[in-house]
């Protein structure tokens, strides 16, 4: 087992770090304050190839592995949780299912624009009555001639109003499963601007405030028959498999937020003086930092292992990365919450002000325990694998 990164990965990290420090960090406070989607930054990331990192070159992507993608999200999250989730939702939740389940025509049609960042992607599964329980879906799709007609709504959609291409889940019928009638769910690709597709309210959130989180509304929204993604009735599997990958992206975001808070705290405790000494000279501070750093390191190992396992899946289309992704997200999210909370505490009163970034990081960290499967869902995934 070798824990050293390759030279390529090291250079990629240097690139992501430099980009994050130069282009993203200076805007992070403003993005949070104004709750505005950082469009200019997204365009710069598109130009640098950050919106198609694990997409094969034949579809206009960078042709890199998941590990490289994860490091990108991690470095962005160290300075801005909002920017990190834009990349993660776009890549893991929209590009990835199209790449995995799309027909050749769908891949050729959508991936080059998405991978180059000319278009942004989003994913719509959650509904007012269907979060963790995906079977609670109400959105329906009915086939009329050569078109599917969508009716219903999706909530809490990341990249909501800013995206151009959406992977949407809807009920396409009822099927009998083990003697019970259950909803048959299918996946669709929906483009912005399709008549009958509109946006509802923008969510006012605690953290990742620059991320565009919207309600999507479908009212007799007609999409071509060929926009079904994967087979009819396979939507639930597509959603779950997509979320397995998405969790690695969110785990990387959580990891970066925790690491970013730790970096700032290390700087702060060296400078802040109390009782004539830097507070870093006190053993309480030192022990807190030691615990924070150890947990961040553990999270990084879990996240990188999950990325490496998904890379194995890319090669053999067999290896499962569901448990690795769940463990990485569970641990990294809880680490991020704990480390950012301690970071605020070590900053004292200053840490509670919005001038010091650890306050924002603590707010940003919370969502990583909730979206793309709560920590409780991750525990269900992990334990069901233990007890099967």
């Amino acid at each position, binding site marked *: 087992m070798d824990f050293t990164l390759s030279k*390529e990965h090291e*250079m990629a990290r240097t690139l992501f770090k430099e980009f994050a420090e130069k282009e993203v960090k200076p805007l992070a406070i403003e993005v949070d304050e104004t709750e505005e989607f950082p469009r200019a930054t997204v365009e710069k990331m598109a130009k640098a190839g950050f919106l198609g990192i694990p997409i094969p070159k034949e579809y206009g992507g960078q*042709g890199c592995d998941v590990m490289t993608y994860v490091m*990108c999200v991690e470095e962005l999250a160290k300075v801005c949780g909002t920017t990190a989730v834009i990349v993660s939702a776009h890549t893991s939740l929209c590009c990835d299912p199209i790449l995995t389940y799309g027909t050749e025509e769908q891949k050729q049609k959508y991936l080059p624009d998405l991978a180059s960042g000319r278009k942004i992607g989003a994913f719509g599964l959650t509904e007012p009555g269907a979060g963790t329980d995906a079977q609670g879906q109400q959105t329906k799709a009915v086939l009329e001639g050569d078109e599917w007609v969508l009716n219903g709504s999706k909530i809490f959609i990341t990249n909501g109003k800013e995206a151009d291409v959406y992977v949407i889940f809807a009920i396409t019928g009822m099927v009998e499963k083990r003697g019970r009638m259950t909803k048959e769910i299918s996946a669709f690709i929906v483009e912005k601007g399709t008549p009958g597709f509109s946006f509802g309210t923008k969510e006012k959130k605690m953290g990742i405030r620059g991320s565009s989180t919207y309600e999507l509304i479908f009212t007799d929204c007609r999409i071509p028959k060929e926009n079904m993604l994967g087979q009819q009735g396979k939507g639930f599997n597509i959603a779950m498999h997509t979320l397995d990958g998405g969790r690695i992206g969110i785990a990387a975001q959580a990891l970066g937020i925790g690491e970013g808070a730790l970096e700032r705290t290390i700087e702060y405790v060296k400078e802040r003086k109390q009782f004539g000494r830097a507070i870093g000279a006190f053993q309480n501070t030192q022990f807190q930092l030691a615990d924070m750093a150890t947990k961040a390191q553990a999270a990084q190992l879990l996240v990188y292992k999950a990325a490496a396992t998904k890379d194995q899946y890319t090669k053999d289309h067999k290896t499962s990365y569901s448990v690795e992704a769940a463990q990485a997200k569970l641990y990294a999210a809880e680490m991020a919450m704990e480390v950012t909370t301690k970071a605020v505490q070590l900053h004292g009163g200053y840490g509670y002000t919005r001038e010091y970034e650890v306050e924002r990081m603590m707010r940003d960290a919370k969502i990583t325990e909730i979206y793309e499967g709560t920590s409780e869902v991750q525990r269900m995934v992990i334990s069901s694998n233990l007890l099967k």
Partner: protein
Amino acid sequence: MKVVVCVKQVPDTKGGVKFNPDGTLDRAAMLTIMNPDDKAGLEAALRLKDKYGAEVTVVTMGLPKAEEVLREALAMGADKGILVTDRVLGGADTWATSQTLAGAIRNLDYDIIITGRQAIDGDTAQVGPQISEHLGIPVISYAQKIEIEGDSVIVERQYDDRYHVLKAKMPCLITALAELNEPRYMTPGGIFDAYNAEITTWGRADLKDVDDSNLGLKGSPTQIARASDKVRKGQGEKVNLDPSESVSYIMGKLKEKHVI
């Protein structure tokens, strides 16, 4: 069109400077970057590639570790990388360096050679113009804008309070300022391609029409007697005074320090 860009791996001054016991820089022990003026020169070449389909070859002279800047240049979009490295070339000053680079470039076809104005570790601004002298081609230094017109280049040359517009027939050499442009980022895919690409490595024997007496430490007319880290200045003193008072305050300080 063929463009050759000379780049140098220099210490990242943010990471602190380290010295060998003989007073020369311990390059192996320092964090390194591509010299900023050279990076602007590379970006200028890559824009010529975008616009005219130019082929961009990047040349560097240095330790084997200097290969990293060539990989970086390839990841930004350069086509070829050539590393000139040999023990006998070590300790070179600007004269020996320019002789070495000219000896390497004589093996290549080129329409334009671009170098950075100067490197942040030596700050001499001599190597570019010296290369042009050795190759017998025109040089336009301190370029802040480069355009192509037929078989000529039109360059805005930065001057103290103005700029000059100069035209030169190709082949010619241009030295670039960091202000010339905002260099592009590497792309993630470009990084992996760069590590799969082959870097050409040349030694002394590959240099064309260069005399041994002009190479390395022995061929260097200047030698560093002593080098030291920058002495950090204090924070200084901040005062808030009316304009009338401040003149006499400043004059007093200058007299006190025996400046005037």
